[in-house]
């Protein structure tokens, strides 16, 4: 059974009087444990697809199921705890809270779980250890390099051990060296920790690291490489 099932999804945006059809009957299945790269030109619907899977947005019609739950039918009140439990999200701009240290940023998702202070501490240290930032846990985002910030964001995404890790252009703001570090880390998370990863990217190097690559154009799946679908 696929971890992510997208069936006959339509998504339409209304901007003033203009109607924009992003998806017109898109169907995709993503098996558990895959490392999927979504590629395509700007406006092809990559980020929208990511938002639909993460329950940040709703399809106009069709169903989105993740780990057996119909995300597209959930209310906002149901989605928040569902995201906390099942989704780790990484943004292009890192989006760490500037007033919190790396440790505190990584701890954020754990505040939503019924864990003791000690349990939270243990998990935060493990997550920071996985991304190689044990020695930077007391640093604020402004004291970290771009690559370190993104690794902290990845630590935040994995700390609650979510079902799915989703990344939107994770290397978009990084130099080549930092990009390789981040991509290597994602590959390790997939291979060693068997995490299911979906990454939206323009970066061909990122796509090379993925097990599966889907190409989207104008909301349609035009090409696939690997085992998805």
């Amino acid at each position, binding site marked *: 059974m696929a971890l992510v099932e997208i069936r006959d999804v339509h998504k339409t945006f209304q901007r003033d009087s203009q109607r924009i059809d992003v998806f017109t009957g898109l169907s995709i299945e993503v098996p558990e444990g895959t490392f999927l790269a979504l590629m395509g030109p700007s406006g092809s619907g990559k980020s929208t697809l990511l*938002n639909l899977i*993460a329950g*940040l*947005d709703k399809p106009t019609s069709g169903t989105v199921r993740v780990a057996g739950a119909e995300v597209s039918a959930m209310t*906002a*009140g149901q989605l*928040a*705890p*569902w*995201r*906390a*439990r099942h*989704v780790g*999200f990484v*943004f*292009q*701009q890192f*989006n760490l*809270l*500037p*007033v*919190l240290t790396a440790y*505190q940023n990584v701890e*954020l*998702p754990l*505040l*939503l779980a019924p864990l003791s*202070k000690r349990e939270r501490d243990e998990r935060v240290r493990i997550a920071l250890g996985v991304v190689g930032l044990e020695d930077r846990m007391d640093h604020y985002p402004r004291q970290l390099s771009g690559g370190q910030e993104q690794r902290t964001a990845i630590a*935040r995404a994995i700390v609650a051990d979510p079902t799915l890790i989703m990344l939107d252009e994770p290397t978009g703001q990084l130099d080549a060296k930092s990009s390789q570090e981040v991509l290597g880390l994602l590959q390790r998370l997939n291979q060693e920790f068997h995490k299911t990863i979906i990454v939206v990217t323009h970066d061909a190097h990122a796509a090379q690291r993925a097990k599966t690559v889907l190409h989207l154009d104008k909301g349609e799946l035009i090409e696939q490489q690997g085992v998805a679908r």
Partner: protein
Amino acid sequence: MKYFPLVLANLGRHKRRTILTIAGVALALFLFASLRTVVTTIGAAAQFGSARRLVATNATGIVFPLPLSYANRLSTVPGVEAVTWANWFGGRYGDGKRFFANFAVDPVSYLDMYPELVMPADQREAFLREKSSAIIGKRLLEVFGWQLGQDVTLQGTIFPGDWTFTIRGIYTPSDAVLNDDMLLFRHDYFDERIGRAGIAGWYVIRIDDPNRAASIAKSIDDQFKNSSTPTKTGTEQAFNATFATMWGNVRLLMGTIGTAVVFAILLVAANAMMMSARERTGEVAILKTIGFRDGTLFALVMLEAGLISLTGAAIGLGAAKLLYRATNFNAAGFLPGFDVTPSTIVIGAGIALLLMLASGLVPALRAARLPVIQALRHVE
């Protein structure tokens, strides 16, 4: 509790703004407490007075005296237990910049009438023994640095000349509303100096039954109705209230302009708090993406607003309470017993809660209701 570091971190984001906002709230509530205490002090002064004491003055006006011969006649009115009298002197000390009440009293009957003037027995005896002696409130010791046994000279304004008294007693009022900076001297000395014995400024009459105050007062006034100097008798409380009404306009000013100033400061503080919350729309999006519920975000923003409001309130109200108590402030004797009351603290805390709601509710609701996908546009 686990969210507390997040709230504190947000408050520390713009330290200067947070400090200034808290200072604004503190200042507003300090002013509120001060202004309201003026009003409550005046009110308390108007309420002061024993239910068993009446005051008789000249019916024409308090500035006109009454014959001293009335004392004996007053004491024969049914229901009257004791009578004493006093005369406003209006002397000033030094450059006269520091006002304090001073008047001549009949020593034995006056101290008997006012057990609220607490003083050691030997000092009381000394006052009763020595004609040119005076007793003073303990505050005058601090104000002028006077000492027991010292001679002090007042310049008479109504009764001209230098009037020298020897301080023989220092009283402490048992009721905070009673002035602790009066100078009382002996009426017989006063009579002797002015050479016009036989006048009293007002009489104070103790009655046996407070429930009969009105009928006894009427009996007194009826007795002197057809004399050349009719009386106007009422309860001591009513007598004090007439002085309190002189503050009428001041109370109005306190109540209106003061309130307007306080709320202007509070609005500025509320605006700063709302602005701070608005700036963080992007971060709200991140927290929503992580899985923070709308209710949790609402509570976090409200908690932040509450911390600012309540910290400011604690500082402002606490400072007013401690400062006035520590300095024993009484507005140069015009506001005896000036003390921030518990009701003022409670109302001040209520204002702080209202401020929390006014400044936190809109951004908190906005943060809670903001669709995550729309909020994310602030991030991207």
